[in-house]
């Protein structure tokens, strides 16, 4: 049985874009810092999907887009590591990770 794997690329790109915007909305509205971090991850997932689909158009071979995606995963992973460390340290020092309370630096 031969699965018709003809993928409709524009649909996938639109999916990625939708995911990106949802992540963006999450970043803007989530009160807790961890929530924001999650939304950022969501946005990076969208970018990865987009990268993979773009692979189809990369002419010699899609290897480059795969490398791009893998590198992106590594980078986002390290970001999450640093981000969580920061949030935990903030939580420990002033017992809140609510983003809106952290507004001492201004002007």
């Amino acid at each position, binding site marked *: 049985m031969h699965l018709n794997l003809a993928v409709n690329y524009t649909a996938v790109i639109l999916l990625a874009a939708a995911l990106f915007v949802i992540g*963006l909305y999450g*970043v*803007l*509205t989530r009160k807790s810092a961890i929530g*924001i971090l999650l939304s950022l991850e969501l946005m990076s997932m969208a970018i990865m999907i987009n990268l993979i689909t773009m692979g189809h158009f990369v002419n010699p071979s899609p290897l480059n887009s795969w490398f791009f995606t893998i590198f992106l995963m590594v980078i986002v992973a390290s970001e999450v590591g640093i981000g969580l460390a920061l949030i935990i340290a903030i939580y420990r020092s002033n017992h809140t990770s609510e*983003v*809106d309370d*952290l*507004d*001492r*630096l*201004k*002007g």
Partner: protein
Amino acid sequence: MNWFFLIPVFPALGFIALVFLSRAWRNRLIYIGPVLVGLSALLAIIGFIRYFPGRVIGQPFASLSWTLARLGGVRLTLSLGLDSLAILMLAMVSIVGFCVQLYSLFYMKDDERRGWYFCVLLLFTAAMLALVTSGNLLLIFAMWEVMGVCSYLLIGFWYKDEAPRRASIKAFLVTRAGDLGFFVALAAIWSACGSFQLDAIIKAAPQFSAATLLVVGIGLLWAAAGKSAQLPLSVWLPDAMAGPTPSSAIIHAATMVAAGIFMIARMMPVISLSHVALSLALWVGIITALFGAFLACFQTDIKRMLAFSTISQLGLMFAALGTGAIDGSLFHLITHAFFKSLLFLAAGTIIHVTGTQDMRKMGGLAKRMPIMMTIFSIGAFALAGIMPLSGFFSKDLIMEEFLTHGHPVVFALALVMATLTALYVVKAWFTVFFGASRQEKSHAHEGTLLEIVPTAILAAFTLLLGVFNQGWLGCLGFKVEMPTLQMASISTGVMLIGALAGFLLYRFRIDNDWLAKHAPWLLRATEARLYTDAVYEYLIIKPYFWVSALLWRVDARVIDGAVNGMVALYGGLTKLAEVTDSRLIDGAVNGIGAGYKRLTAVAWIVDARLIDGAVNGVGAGLKQAGGLAKKAQVGRIHAYQRAVVGAVIVLLIIVLFVVFVVLKGVA
């Protein structure tokens, strides 16, 4: 090099010698003054005799010129020229100067700053001598102003009290106001004929345009009016009496005030080309003459009376110049120099003896100082114009000139002026010398030798110049006949009427106290010098104080503010842009309560700030802008994120608009 050019150099050397010394040394060396001026007087007389009978004015026997500078390629030269008018004026100035120096030895002998007095007097004499011999208008102007400085220093000699200080400033400023005219005339002459040499100017004068001639004419007349105290600028002379009397004798009687008349006489070939200038001189002259004579009658201070008399005599000379002929005015200038300086010196002795300048307190001095009385009388009667004395002949010549040049109205006014002159002279003569001495214990005594000799010399000249006028005047190339019998009788008659009126006024004590009862308005008018001072006070001096104070506040507040206001405006505009920008982002995504409260307030602040931005200056203006620009930094992460996303959206819209509307596609 002609020896006679040394005449101005001697007093100049005296000045240089004295000016750098300490006060003590200067006071010891005051004798340099009379010696040097005497030397130059001697040289001047020898020069006069040697060059007598001289040629027509303008052809110098000897001249000396040197280049001051090259200006736009043209050589700017200065020159001294000894022509007949120069040697005559040299003689007059140096003789009067010598007499005044001698007299000052007595008058200033116990003043502890006499060294400085003689030093400035020497500079003044040098400047006047240089002016008289100068053949270059620029040199005349330079010496003209140096004399102004000397008169400022001499009037304000006793700087400790208030009156001399104010008088000296007034004198200097009014004469400099006059000099402004000279400045403009010089500028006009330079751009018209490119040289200041008198002969060059006179040769090129006919080619001048009418406008230049008018400007030069009026400019020079305005300068002469300033220096010779003619009506618009006559306010300084009466106050200038605050200075030492001998200095007034030479400055405000003989030389400086005469410099104006002399300069106009020198430049007459140019000025006579513009009839407007001539008639202006005529009428200003005669009105000033009347003004001076009229006020002189009401003066109680002897020096102030003499000052007003000088103003009126100068007015007469000015009017004589107005007729275009310079012989009458020059003749009167020479004679007036002698008898007026004589009167001032004599008045100095009288003041020294009686201790007061107020004539009403004097009286009965005839018995106490017979010699001084005779000398004073010679001067006074010459001024009044009594027959044998020089005053009569010079005034007569001027009267004739009015007639010959067809100015009957001016002639009549001159007659009125002559009567008034006779009136105040005789009145003063009687009040001072006759009647009971009005002082408690009058210790009046005869003048010392140092007072008698100089005044006697001047009196001698007053006598001689009159009778032998054809002689010495001939050297100027003038044909002067004796006054016709008819002319002599008219002027003598007029003089007698005036004298009689003067005696009657004295006899029946119709003086200021009487006036106070009967015509108080007249008394106030004469005291206020017919309100000429008031005109300056309220029209020029007070408004100027007010304007300068206003400008000073303007400068501190508005100019600074305006310059800074611009920046505040600039600050305001940028803030406006940012506020809308950040509101758009926050508003678009979701409103933050606190943010709105602050942002809406901004609208009010914006216009308040813009309106008085001019006032609060760049510091505050920028600070407002800076402070509000900081407002966008609210400190909350969400606000920043929304700002970022908002900016992305805005940029996206703008770029897409640019690409698809402006550039029509991406190609």
